């Protein structure tokens, strides 16, 4: 058998299908998946779920397809005119004999498709009031049963179980399993939330069916694509409609999702959600013990007060009896004191009177007058000679001065000189 290249002669042509298939195989073998940059044009989303459009630049264009399975990993439909980079595989679509770029990821330049979708949805929910802080319900202080919507196998569930039972071994966790990433995850989460709503509704109608008083919804850390279900509009609306207070717990501290805005509380991680939801049993015991102590102390105080009050009543009676005689004694003492005070005052008054009189006396004393330069004439018999009539020529008398006495003789008697006129 001898080898010739296929289609080397008109006698041995290849089929169209063969060539298309070979071309496809060669192209796919020649290119690994790669990123291509271009502008979106002619975007069309088909009812089948596939997207078709053209990527173009100034001089060339490339037919593109995003299969339905891949569209779920792309946050938003790209719009015509948008500059993007797309990751895909070059291939051939044999049915149309067309070069085709099969895309698995798209990123918009600048803002980014993810952010665009996130911001648009957030703004929409805000306008509807679903993110309003006033809508947020208070968590129950002591939940007995907590519904957990997450993957049955994930790290999130393990963390929530561990934290819950460490804090309070008495709290029941009821898992409502859901797909939390990949295709169908949003629908699965919405279905789980629907189950929760029906369960709570059934609880109201079914005595004895214990229903949750709280829900934790979330998953552990992952890539942006992994967490994207929690930015889904349907998921957000289902969380907002949850019949019990709901804590969102998606990814790590830095991951913020739309679910966080509509939940009653955002926990940074699943562990943090369990910590926020579940009180520590030891602290509850302490709290109860403290309340018991407070009550006992209060009552003991009360009894003490009552007993003291009784004692005081008895004392009061005795005291009143004593007080009657005491009052009499006190009155006598008061009178004595008053009399003494009056006497003292009389003495005082007299004393000061004496002092005043002494002063007057001193002022009236002739010695004071002599001190000012006047002299007093005194007869030899010691009588004061105060008028002209007591003198005649040759009368012998004494002049009393400040510091002694002068014996004098009257030379003559006259009527001039100062007269002291009697006023009356």
């Amino acid at each position, binding site marked *: 058998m001898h080898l010739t290249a296929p289609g080397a002669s008109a006698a041995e042509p290849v089929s169209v299908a063969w060539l298309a298939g070979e071309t496809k195989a060669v192209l796919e073998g020649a290119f690994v998946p790669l990123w291509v940059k271009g502008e979106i044009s002619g975007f069309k989303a088909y009812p089948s779920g596939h997207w078709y459009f053209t990527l173009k630049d100034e001089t060339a264009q490339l037919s593109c397809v995003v299969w339905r399975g891949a569209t779920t990993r792309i946050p938003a439909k790209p719009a015509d005119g948008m500059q993007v980079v797309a990751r895909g595989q070059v291939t051939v679509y044999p049915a149309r004999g067309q070069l085709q770029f099969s895309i698995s990821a798209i990123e918009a330049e600048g803002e980014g498709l993810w952010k665009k979708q996130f911001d648009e949805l957030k703004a929409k929910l805000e306008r509807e009031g679903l993110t309003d802080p006033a809508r947020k319900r208070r968590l*129950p*202080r*002591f939940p*007995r049963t907590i*519904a957990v919507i997450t993957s*049955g196998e994930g790290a999130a569930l393990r963390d929530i*179980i561990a934290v*819950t*039972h460490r804090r*309070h*071994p*008495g*709290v*029941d*966790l*009821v*898992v*409502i*399993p859901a797909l939390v990433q990949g295709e169908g995850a949003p629908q699965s989460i919405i279905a789980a939330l629907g*189950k*929760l709503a*029906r*369960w709570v*509704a*059934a609880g109201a109608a079914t005595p004895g*069916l*214990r229903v949750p008083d709280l829900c934790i919804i979330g998953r552990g850390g992952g890539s942006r694509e992994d967490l994207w279900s929690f930015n889904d509009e349907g998921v957000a609306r289902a969380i907002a409609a949850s019949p019990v207070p709901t804590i969102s717990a998606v990814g790590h501290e830095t991951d913020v999702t739309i679910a966080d805005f509509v939940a009653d509380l955002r926990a940074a991680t699943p562990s943090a959600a369990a910590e926020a939801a579940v009180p520590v*049993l030891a602290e*509850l*015991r302490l*709290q*109860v013990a403290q*309340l*018991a102590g*407070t*009550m006992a102390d*209060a*009552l003991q*105080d*009360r009894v003490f*007060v*009552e007993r003291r009050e009784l004692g005081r009543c008895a004392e009061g009676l005795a005291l009143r009896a004593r007080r009657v005689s005491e009052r009499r004694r006190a009155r006598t003492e008061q009178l004595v004191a008053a009399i003494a005070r009056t006497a003292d005052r009389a003495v005082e008054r007299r004393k000061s009177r004496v002092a005043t009189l002494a002063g007057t006396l001193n002022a009236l004393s002739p010695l004071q007058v002599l001190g000012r330069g006047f002299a007093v004439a005194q007869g030899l018999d010691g009588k004061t000679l105060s008028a002209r009539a007591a003198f005649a020529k040759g009368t012998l008398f004494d002049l009393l001065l400040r510091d002694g006495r002068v014996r004098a003789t009257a030379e003559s008697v006259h009527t001039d000189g100062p007269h002291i006129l009697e006023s009356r």
Partner: protein
Amino acid sequence: MTFEENLTRLEQIAAKLESDNLPLEEALRLFEEGIAHLREAKAALGDAEGKVKTLIEQAEGVFEVKE
């Protein structure tokens, strides 16, 4: 009464007893009521053996919680 209701009532009673201006009869009655709530609250904390279960919806709106 739930644990929460018991604890809330206990907190009210403790506060009232501490407020000091109750008639003695009233104080004693409240204390007795408090003791009852205390017993219930303690019992609720005592029977704690929490479980992890899975919710199963057997039919629309018919639920079973399975361990």
